[in-house]
């Protein structure tokens, strides 16, 4: 061990980080700035100054290096820090041009693209992908609609994060947030209560308050409840307000999911 004789001033270590990808669909600088600001304003504690990787692979129209520099500034003003570009055919040359590193997104990225709920279209949604992250809510089977083979090419089998399990009822005025995991409530959620999770939200009782799944931006997160009657449901910041529950789903056991960027509710078959 050389350390016994000589301690180097630095160490190069391998580390895995979880980063959000800002996938641009429509390259409209003004619109992007507005939508990103709004998105950050919804969850400032989580998103304000969060580092993101810019994905221009789907951007339409294709931006020039000058426009990308402009976007970097606007993104920062809107509250997100672009730290790198996704290294694809479009991103790599642009990354060089604007002086940022180009990052290759890990194999799990593909899986997230295949996920049933497509990321918000025509919106700069901060779709969370999980390049080589162990232990994120997306490792949870509940997040996937279709049973999928565990990603064989994933570096290491992620360890499941236990959900936050609470007995109900959650009463009006109470706020619950399950950070980085699913939330399970074995009881009712009263009107005026708020339950949120970065993963899925399960309510084994009547849901009368507000429920927010994918609070950190996971568009695959879903909400389940035994009796539907919420004031508001939200998935990855896409929300829907119910003045009164539609007759065909009121009081029913339902699944709430994101369908092409829109919050959809469907009854669970018995």
């Amino acid at each position, binding site marked *: 061990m050389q350390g016994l004789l000589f301690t180097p001033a630095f160490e190069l270590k391998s580390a895995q980080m979880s980063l959000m990808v800002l996938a641009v669909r429509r390259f409209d600088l003004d619109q992007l700035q507005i939508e990103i600001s709004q998105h950050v304003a919804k969850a400032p504690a989580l998103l304000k100054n969060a580092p993101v990787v810019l994905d221009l692979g789907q951007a339409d129209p294709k931006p020039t290096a000058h426009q990308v520099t402009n976007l970097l500034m606007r993104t920062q003003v809107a509250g997100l820090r672009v730290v790198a570009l996704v290294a694809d055919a479009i991103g790599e040359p642009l990354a060089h041009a604007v002086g940022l590193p180009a990052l290759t997104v890990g194999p799990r990225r593909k899986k997230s693209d295949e996920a049933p709920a497509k990321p918000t279209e025509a919106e700069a949604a901060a779709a969370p992908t999980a390049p080589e992250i162990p232990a994120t809510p997306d490792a949870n089977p509940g997040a996937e609609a279709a049973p999928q083979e565990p990603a064989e090419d994933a570096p290491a089998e992620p360890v499941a994060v236990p959900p936050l399990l609470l007995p109900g009822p959650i009463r009006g005025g109470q706020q619950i947030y399950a950070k980085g995991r699913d939330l399970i409530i074995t009881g009712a959620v*009263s009107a005026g209560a708020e339950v949120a999770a970065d993963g899925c939200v399960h309510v084994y009782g009547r849901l009368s308050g507000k429920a927010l799944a994918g609070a950190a931006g996971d568009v695959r997160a879903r909400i389940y409840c035994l009796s539907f009657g919420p004031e508001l449901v939200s998935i990855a910041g896409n929300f829907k307000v119910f003045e009164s529950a539609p007759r065909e789903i009121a009081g029913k056991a339902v699944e709430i999911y994101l369908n092409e960027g829109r919050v959809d509710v469907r009854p669970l078959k018995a």
Partner: protein
Amino acid sequence: MGEVIVVTSGKGGVGKTTTSASLACGFARRGKKIAVVDFDIGLRNLDLIMGCERRVVYDFVNVINGDCSLKQALIKDKRFDNLSVLAASQTKDKDALTQDGVAKVIDELKSEFDIVLCDSPAGIERGAFFAMYFADRAVVVVNPEVSSVRDSDRVLGIMSSKSRRAEQGQTAVKEHLLLTRYSPERVERGDMMSIGDVEEILGVKVIGVIPESPEVLSASNSGVPVILDENSDAGQAYTDAVARLLGDTVPMRFLDAKKKGFFQRLFGS
């Protein structure tokens, strides 16, 4: 050690003080040694309903401030030897309540009495908070209407997360609902929520239903808690509620036909 029972609701005007006075007399009539404490500092009412307003010399705040002993401040009821009233202060405000001060008074009362009944003010601020903080059981007074139910839900939430039992990780405060100003006819017509509606929304069992009754007002005005009026429906319903709180099994009365309620009609099923 005595048991602390809070009478609370969140919303004002639903009948907390009327209920506190009647339950206190009911427990006393069943032979329990009981103290009833008015937590509505600045707006004291319990002494009026109990008919002892002319005999208030010292009050709750005086005891906390050490101006007098607890014994000096407790007013013995003229009808029941085993019933005492601790009045609220009319001149101070609710900031006069301190956690240590209230804790000391409650603990002293618990060592002296079988039941310490805390009459909570409306709202969820200091007075209401301290009234429920030390509770072992709670009687949540609800009117069968949406705003009262919502406020009760809020209070139940605060109790389950912020009471002393919750903070110390003991078994939760035992919750009971007491439905007041219940009108079976209006429930039947569908313009008042039914017992089932309220129980379903709040997820707590109803321990008593007090029918809307003109005797309640006249009893309050004359300083004789309505439970002592054996001829009134409300008085008998309170007697039943006291029995249930003491563990007896008593069938519900004054409910009439059980028809579909307001919400059930609205949403079907």
